């Protein structure tokens, strides 16, 4: 009996609870203080291109979260096997494989969305956020932490593009998820703002978001 307790104690000591304070920070940092879009200003190209309406944006957000989480996981599991000299191309192949899978599944089960997003899903490969996480985090950390890091960065990207899309669809098309908001509250003549459906509208919404967020967090680029 005594030997058993002795063996157990050290195991409990090194075993970290799944939602420890450190891990919560890994998850919550990219949501706000270290947001990939508003602080690191990565992944802007897709944030501008696919945020005209909420529906494609939501699908894009889910795809990016999926790709980030799984490429982080796979890279982290392989991190001790990957030869250092070819690590970038290895990371790239992992991302490209996952992106191709997402694109193929979309083509099979949601063809109308595939037609809208087609090129942009493929461009997740070049989304700096994904590769940035692999190089900066997954190459040097354990799989569990890497998943949490991927979720954090993915959701950090997702909530920003969804917010941008919310304002662009509301002001540009007068709807949310194709549901006509202004018509249903009896304001049928709501003038749609053409600027919002153009990429310029995305720049403006994103700029305002970055402004608000940096005012709150006090972040200043060095």
């Amino acid at each position, binding site marked *: 009996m005594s030997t058993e307790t002795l063996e157990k104690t050290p195991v409990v000591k090194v075993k970290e609870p799944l939602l420890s304070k450190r891990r919560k920070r890994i998850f919550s940092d990219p949501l706000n203080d270290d947001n990939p879009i508003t602080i690191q200003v990565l992944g802007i190209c897709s944030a501008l291109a696919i945020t005209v309406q909420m529906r494609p944006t939501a699908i894009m957000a889910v795809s990016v979260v999926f790709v980030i989480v799984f490429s982080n996981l796979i890279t982290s599991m392989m991190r001790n096997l990957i030869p250092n000299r070819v690590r970038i191309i290895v990371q790239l*192949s992992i991302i490209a494989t996952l992106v191709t899978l997402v694109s193929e599944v979309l083509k099979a089960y949601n*063809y109308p969305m595939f037609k809208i997003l087609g090129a942009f899903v493929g461009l997740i490969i070049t989304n700096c956020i994904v590769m940035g996480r692999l190089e900066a985090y997954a190459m040097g950390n354990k799989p569990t932490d890497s998943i949490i890091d991927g979720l954090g960065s993915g959701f950090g990207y997702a909530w920003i593009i969804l917010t941008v899309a919310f304002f662009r669809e509301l002001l540009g098309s007068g709807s949310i998820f194709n549901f006509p908001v202004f018509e249903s509250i009896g304001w049928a003549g709501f003038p749609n703002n053409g600027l919002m459906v*153009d990429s310029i509208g995305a720049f403006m919404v994103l700029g305002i978001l970055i402004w608000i967020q940096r005012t709150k967090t006090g972040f200043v680029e060095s």
Partner: protein
Amino acid sequence: MRLSNTYIIVFTAIMTIIIGGALSLANQLLKPAQTRAIKLDTRTQILNAVMDLQEGDDILAIYDDRIDGFVVNISGDEITADSKGNPIQADKVNIIRNFKKKPEEREYPVFKFTSKDDPLKIEAYIFPVYGNGLWNNIFGFVALESDLNTIKGVSFGHVGETPGLGARITESEIEDRYIGKKIFDNQGKFMSVTMLKGEKKDPSMFGPHEVDGMSGATITARGLNAMLKEYLHDYEAFIKKIQRQEAI
């Protein structure tokens, strides 16, 4: 060990095989669903040119019931086999591949839209069209009434036109502007239908061969005009032939 060239070569080789295998497997497993999705999409576009589809409509059933497709050549004669002798089906003709050929060599699909009650009565003829927009290709289906002159409806699509500007060609507000327009003048001369520059939003200002333009999308409109002119002209021999038959 992880720095040796042999290790790197073996590592990349194994990785390539695993990734390649996984992707081909996924492709094979998803292929039936993808083919079905593309078929459904094409049929939706064809039907959209002649009727307002509601969500939940059984598109494949309506298509089977009311659409009858065949293929003609530039002289308007029906063809049943391609240059290699393989049988061709109207809904399997690859419009993009044909677009790259010379007009005389293209296969031109025609879709007859028959009446719900009388399968022999033709309500419309639907022709696929294909061309270049501002950034990338544009395409669509044009439906003519049984007089083969009046436009019953159109459905357009695009690959990469600017959202809010050229991409508006897919909106029903723009597509509806074509309804009732004529492609021949009173003497039977081919006129096509031209979208003008500028947006007036007043249908009464336009003649039978003109439609209101799209503000900010002049080049897309130019592509649209060229596409309609080229393809309807290519179908002219077929159209005239049917019109003569109807007259007798």
